[in-house]
């Protein structure tokens, strides 16, 4: 029974991480899948969201902290909203500069902004606590859930051990529920947007920018809107990560974990398809965790083992691009209700 509880708790932890990635992949899908915008600075918007949320909803600086700013302890929904808004503002700035230029410039600018944000997080300790990281970020409704569980267990001392250890981890179930609700809400939002006239214009721009412009669409404005919306969703993912991990440090926002894996997820699941984005997040995160398990058996140093895993996932990305560029699910074909008859 204890083994089973252990497996269950691992799956729970796995699902929460994969769920955060699913939010990132949904955001990237709005940019790349719908509109064809090449953002390789996902990690930057993710980090902005995480740190914003932590500063808005987190505790004030402690005696041992370097930071002197933020930590207003506001409720989680406010930190969550602020994460989206600030990420959107950063995207607005970057997009405003580069969206009219060739796609390459947007790619270079996003990689640059992610790198600059990483440098800021690392070096501006007054704001982000630098390399010491932000600690004690509160999880929403943690206290009530935890005290409820404690009271419940205190009243029933005869419960079997496995049930006790399962109940002690009850908070993670609550958080998974919250995450699932957010994913579901975002899914319906972006799915609705995709099927709206607005979404149709985005896809038209992706397929042929000149033709879309010839139809009188303001291509730059639509692209900017999609870029800002996608980045805001990435910011929300950052908030969701921060309040579960409860600790933020700069390594979590390096290009590998913050950007590259998200791209592999979206491309594997099927760019343009929101179900594909979510599926890809769980599948690739499962693969990533599985290779961790497998390389554990090889006689390799940690550095080599992790390098080997990245090689595998990189080869997978290139392989998908060459063999099945539409991914597992591919984009759904849309036919107007008028023609379905």
């Amino acid at each position: 029974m204890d083994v089973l509880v252990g497996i269950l708790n691992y799956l729970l932890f796995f699902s929460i991480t994969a769920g955060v990635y699913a939010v990132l992949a949904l955001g990237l899908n709005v940019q790349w899948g719908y509109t064809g915008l090449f953002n390789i600075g996902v990690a930057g918007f993710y980090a902005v969201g995480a740190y914003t949320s932590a500063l808005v909803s987190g505790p004030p600086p402690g005696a041992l902290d370097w930071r002197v700013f933020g930590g207003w302890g506001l409720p989680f929904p406010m930190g969550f909203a602020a994460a989206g808004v600030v990420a959107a503002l950063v995207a607005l700035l970057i997009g405003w500069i580069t969206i009219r230029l060739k796609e390459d410039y947007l790619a270079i600018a996003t990689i640059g902004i992610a790198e600059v944000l990483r440098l800021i997080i690392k070096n501006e300790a007054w704001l982000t606590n630098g390399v010491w990281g932000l600690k004690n970020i509160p999880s929403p409704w943690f206290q009530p859930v935890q005290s409820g569980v404690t009271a419940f267990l205190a009243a029933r001392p005869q419960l079997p051990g496995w049930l006790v250890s399962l109940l002690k981890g009850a908070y993670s179930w609550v958080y998974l529920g919250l995450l699932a609700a957010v994913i579901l809400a975002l899914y319906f939002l972006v799915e609705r947007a995709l099927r709206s006239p607005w979404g149709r214009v985005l896809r038209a721009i992706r397929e042929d920018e000149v033709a879309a412009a010839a139809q009188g669409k303001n291509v730059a404005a639509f692209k900017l809107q999609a870029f800002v919306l996608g980045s805001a969703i990435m910011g929300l993912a950052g908030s969701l990560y921060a309040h579960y991990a409860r600790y933020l440090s700069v390594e979590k926002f390096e290009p590998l974990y913050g950007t590259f894996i998200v791209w592999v997820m979206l491309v594997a699941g099927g760019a343009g398809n929101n179900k594909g984005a979510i599926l890809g997040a769980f599948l690739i995160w499962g693969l990533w965790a599985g290779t961790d398990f497998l390389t554990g058996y090889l006689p390799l140093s940690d550095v080599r083992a992790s390098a080997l895993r990245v090689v595998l996932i990189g080869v997978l990305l290139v392989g998908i691009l060459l063999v099945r560029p539409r991914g597992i699910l591919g984009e759904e074909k849309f036919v107007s209700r008028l023609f379905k008859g």
Partner: protein
Amino acid sequence: MWERIPQLIVYGLVSGSVITLGAVGLSLTYSILRFSNFAHGDLMTSGAYLGLGFLVLFSPLLPGRFGPLSFGPALIPAVLCAMAANAALAIGIDRLVYRHLRRAKAVLLLMASVGVAFVLRNLILFSAEADPLYFSHHIQRALRIGGVRVKADQLFILGVAVLAVLFLHVLLRYTKTGKAMRAMADNPELAQVSGINTERVVAWTWAVGAALAALGGILSGIENKLVTPELGWQTLLPLFAAVILGGIGSPYGAMLGGMTIGLAEEVSTAFISTAYKPAVAFGILVLMLLVRPQGLLGRR
């Protein structure tokens, strides 16, 4: 603060030389293959590691050092072999990956190059591990020229970069392959119908770009005495900044851009934290995109 500037200019010219060697190759592959190769920085890393490997191989055969320089005759065959091997590596990657995407949208090539970059960097990490490897442990006495300290190596690096740009200019201007490259950069279809073997030109482009990248990586190893698998990633932003600043498709533009970025990054350390060097490159890049996206020497 101000009195440090002449010294920083020396450092800037040296790091500008390394950036230039990467940027000319990046600009070349961009103008002929029409995509931004995000793996170009990692081609510099692979070149540096290949150079180091060949140096270890040749050092027992050709011992000794050239006068005030930190290296000896073994470096010459090592550099040439590394350039050739890196060229072969780039052509190999092209055959495996990019060739199949020739007719795809440029942005798919861009994405493939991001994948290639991660694979390449982690293959290097896998084979050499993360600790830095040393090109030399030799401690050099710097020459003093009017209050500025300059090492013989640094003059050598600057000289090599200038020669490499001149070589590329001659190649593009006066050889048949160079003319074919320029023709393809202008109009690939027209080049093909006029009888140019475009696949051969593509192979040459990769070869020249990767060979120069290897040279840049090795020179960076000589200047810093060491090389890490992060070399290429750390150089990527300055590379793109240099190419955009100078204007895509022009070797002199890439040199102008590379030197400007190198100088700006080093001189900025007199005023702001060294940690923000890449941010300076990015700042210049953004400014350029706002003011003159075609670059200083770019056409259109």
